[in-house]
């Protein structure tokens, strides 16, 4: 369990990262916490020829509030976001979901944007970004672009980030006053979610996001629902997610959890 040989570059400026990505493209990987990537290297699932470490770039290690949005740079660790004093006020849903991301140890190394880049269908941060209508800011040598979170995740472990692009930051709209709730079922504390659900009350109804079931975190928006109408909507949602069996849970079990937890969360935020 030793990685294949690779070059390591500790970037001193964002420009160096972009240049290296432009030159090496798919053979290079950005190292931003490494809580998935390093394990993949050791397992030899991944054999990049170059690792570009961005963790010394202070301009990427920022949490900023402007124009009603919270922007989180690519080098911000999950633990740092959890420690951000204004998190509960500005992003209460993220404050509820972040403690479910791995463990204290992995959060102290793993980055917020690294989780996005990995695109695991069970991951909590992508789920909250999609539910809250967040954005992903991508940059390459000569231009930048911003994608809505729902367009960023294109499949299981697949994102719209091109080989020569760097995820520079993500941004959340400040949440305002809508009530929110988060719940996750995993085999053990810190495990990959079998089902993760997040709900948000909006001015005209409710949004419910589900992770761990479909290939990407998936959101539904409904008007205020209750009783059998809510159950019908949840049942349709549960079936639409295309749940699969794996070693830890059956598709049926996942659908049951979507129906039951979804109902609890929707009721909770609409109270």
């Amino acid at each position, binding site marked *: 369990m030793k990685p294949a040989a690779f070059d390591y570059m500790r970037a001193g400026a964002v420009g160096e990262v972009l240049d290296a990505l432009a030159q090496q493209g798919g053979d290079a990987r950005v190292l931003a916490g490494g809580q998935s990537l390093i*394990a*993949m290297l050791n397992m030899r699932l991944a054999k990049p020829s170059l690792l570009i470490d961005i963790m010394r770039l202070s301009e990427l290690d920022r949490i900023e509030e402007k124009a009603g949005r919270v922007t989180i740079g690519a080098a911000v660790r999950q633990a740092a976001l959890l420690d951000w004093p204004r998190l509960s006020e500005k992003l209460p849903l993220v404050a509820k979901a972040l403690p479910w991301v791995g463990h204290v140890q992995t959060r102290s190394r793993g980055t917020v944007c690294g989780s996005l880049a990995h*695109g695991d269908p069970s991951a909590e941060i992508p789920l909250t970004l999609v539910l809250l209508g967040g954005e992903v800011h991508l940059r390459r040598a000569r231009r930048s672009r911003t994608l809505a979170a729902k367009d960023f995740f294109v499949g299981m472990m*697949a994102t719209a980030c091109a080989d020569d692009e760097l995820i520079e930051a993500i941004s959340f709209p400040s949440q305002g006053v809508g009530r929110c709730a988060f719940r996750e079922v995993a085999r053990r504390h810190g495990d990959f979610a079998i089902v993760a659900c997040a709900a948000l009350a909006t001015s005209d109804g409710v949004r419910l996001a589900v992770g761990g079931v479909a290939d990407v975190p998936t959101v539904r928006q409904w008007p205020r629902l209750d009783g059998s109408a809510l159950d019908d909507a949840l049942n349709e949602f549960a*079936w639409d997610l295309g749940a699969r069996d794996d070693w830890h849970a*059956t598709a049926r*079990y996942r659908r*049951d959890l979507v129906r039951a937890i979804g109902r609890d969360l929707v009721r909770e935020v609409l109270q």
Partner: protein
Amino acid sequence: MAMAAVRPTANLDEDRSQRDPWVGRSIERVEDAALLSGRGRFIDDLGVPPGTLHAAILRSPHAHADIVSIDIESARLAPGVVAVLSGAQVKVLTTSLVVGVKAAVECWPIAIERVRYVGEPVAVIVASDRGRAEDAAELINVTYRPRAAVVDPLAALASDAPILHGGFAGNLASDRSFRYGNPEQAFAEAAHRFSIDIRYPRNSCTPIETYGVIATYDAAEDVFDILANFQGPFSIHTVISRALKVPGNRLRLRTPPDSGGSFGVKQGVFPYIVLMGAASRAAGRPVKWIEDRLEHLTASVSATNRATTLAAAVSSDGKILALDWDQVEDCGAHLRAPEPATLYRMHGNLTGAYDIAHVKVRNRVVVTNKTPSGLNRGFGGPQAFFALERLVQRIALGLGLDPLDVVRRNLIAADAFPYRTATGALLDSGNYQEAVERALELGRLDELKARRDEARAQGRLYGIGFTAVVEPSVSNMGYITTVLTKEERRKAGPKNGAQATATVALDPVGGVTVHVASVPQGQGHRTVLAQVVADVFGLKPQDVRVNTEIDTAKDAWSIASGNYASRFAPAVAGTARLAAERIAARLVRIAASQLNAETADIVFAGGFVASRHNPENRIAFSRVAALSHWSPGSLPDDAGPTIRETVFWTPPQLTAPDEEDRINSSLCHGFIFDFCGVEIDRTTFETRIDRYVTMHDCGTILHPGMVDGQIRGGFAQALGAALYEEYAYAADGSFLTGTFTDYLLPTAAEVPEPQIIHMETPSPFTPLGAKGVGEGNCMSTPVCIANAVADALGLPDISLPLVPAKLAEIVRGPERAPPPGRSAPPQTARNRDRNLHGEGSTSMQAAPKEVWAMLLDPDTLQAVIPGCQRVEKVSETHFRADVVLGIGPVTGRYRAEVRLTDLEPPRAVTLHGQAEGALGFGRAEGRVTLAPEGPGGTRLHYRYDAAIGGKVASIGGRLLDGATRVIIGQFFAALARKTGGGTDAGPTSWLTKLTALLGGRR
């Protein structure tokens, strides 16, 4: 020689805390300062001889396959590589490991011409460092011809089952029947008969530290010097030396000072000792190998899984009159020493804690395409007691009794000890009735029942479970011969006993050193030995230095040496006491002559040897101890040597199996009575332990803190076995739980604190009255929790682990249907069936004829398979390709073959594809149909079955099915793009999906 009764007494002017015996107190562990400050000396921390090379092992991705060819040339020429050994090379340098049953079967530490389980070593690569060795491993080209695999023990018995070894009758390695008393009559006359079928799963108590071996072959002396974190039993030393083709005195086996846990598992390092010994011999230099976690979970060793049918003849008041056991033990692909010991370790204890006179047993041992089994904490106890204690609950249900009443009615009477069980065990001591009543009172069963009633009244799922078991310790080295017939045993010669060794030495200034061959794995043996010996000499524990490293070339050891069968406290610590007492008895004579006192008047206390009647008349311990070094001429003639004493102790009760196959399989028997309350969440079906009470009588307690530590540790691992852990295999033998993402160990967050209650009934058979305590909860807890969950859910049958989705499946009614107008999506995969089924379709802007031509055209295939390096057309319908799959981080090189059959141009074709590479292999078969669509267009529809195995299946189970679906969809999407068509087939990424296959988190 006669032993003087020497006991420290409290007649000197000392602080009281120093006058009480050290044994029985929870003193600070001498091991902890190093372990807690990162100064432990584990095998990977130790220096290696100059020129040491490092080994990596190429392992089989297949559960069962012939090795058609193995090409090691490129690997041999790779940078840094010194030697590459395949099975053929190892076979030249070694002989087969001995097998524990009489059969013409070989057992090699590496695959010879055939692989029989996923992870079986296929080649050893020795290079300047581990990374280069792993680089070279990827260059080895093995061609496999897969065979059908069998993973289920009962399926392995079927007449048409794939056969693993020619030398057994089918897959049956052993089939023995036993009869004790008159079970047939008991069953015929009993009012009731109850029976239960059990499938006990595969699991393991996994240590933090994996296997490690540093092997040096000295050609000049023809000696192997091998350092390994092997735990014993050292009977295996004979197996290793024989395999390495040297006499025992030319195999110097040493152990490092510290070992990071074993739980039995590190007995299984021995095939690798042989393998690395051979590698060192081939390379001409020392070779180091440290097992990685994937290797460990996939292929180190496992407890056995077992299929059991157990029946009981029961009177109407719940008295069990007879048992009928039918056990089918699954030892995996090879019967490695000491298997089938797991099955026979409990042979004397098949009646548990109960007084049952008549027993019938049929024991069968089978081989299947899984990792070979070996030692594991509990060793046979979890499997046997799961059946027995589930049956007790079933009897209670069937007779309308409280399970506790059935337990009470059958417990061995307190005045019956020592009690001989029907199958031959001699239970040393106990008072099971008192232990049960004390546990119920202190554990507040009444309160727990009230909690249950309240929960049930609220509609919650709450249950209570009970277990009563005996915990055997100090194995009889002869029990395994119960697998042989008495004729075979007679021929082989008697095997019995359990030699323990201990050496106590006094240095020239009176320092005391103790050495034992107990090979601790973190338990704290050194602390307890210091307590035991300090008490004999009236010293403090810190005055006694204890060394537990083993060097078979220099130290006292025997076949029973090692760390297993909970033998430390009852056997090893007691033997150290005997050795210290021998020296003390001689020191008494010396001191008596020095002090002009009677020997009976001499006591050891507070660092002095003194007259009991006249405490002022005393001499420092160090002076008495030093006399043998400095002035042997002044010693009394009858004193005898005091410099160093080694005692070999074996209990006389451990006799060989008798003519009727009765076997006293273990020396001591502790008693455990557990009960617990659990609640099952109605939404998630997670099991929450509300309260767990565990009563232990392990005889005299030497160190209460360590005893509780053993109980907590065993409880945590047992909780894992009950709720989380399984070494899971697919029907085709693919191994599915190769990382800790899928093999789930309970962590601190999952393990509640059990309420531990003690009772001390000293063993009359051991020097200190102590019994073993390390394994008991691994035996009692899984079934106690299962009984509680069965009670909560009202289930007659229940199997481990208690996975929430599995419980939900059993308990829940039919699922709510999809909304009207929508059909349920086809199931893409079924549990344990690696054949993923799926379908999809895509539109193409080309007529069926053109699409057809493209499907058969190597150039098109090369273009639509991303990463395709080369397509070779073997025939019109057979293609070979080299493919590098990977976008994003995940890349793997595969050799792929595609065949086309059932051609119906231009309407339909069946594609058979298979690919093999370092990350694993895949096979897929798909039926493709083409139908005209619109002007000049085609609707392509495909339906497939796919199977994936090897490394990716072991580490990527969670996302593998989804990834496979996407990859297959991708192939057709690319084909559609080639025609300029659109696609319905999923997202635009390729093997990035395999990123998921890892367990790494974000």
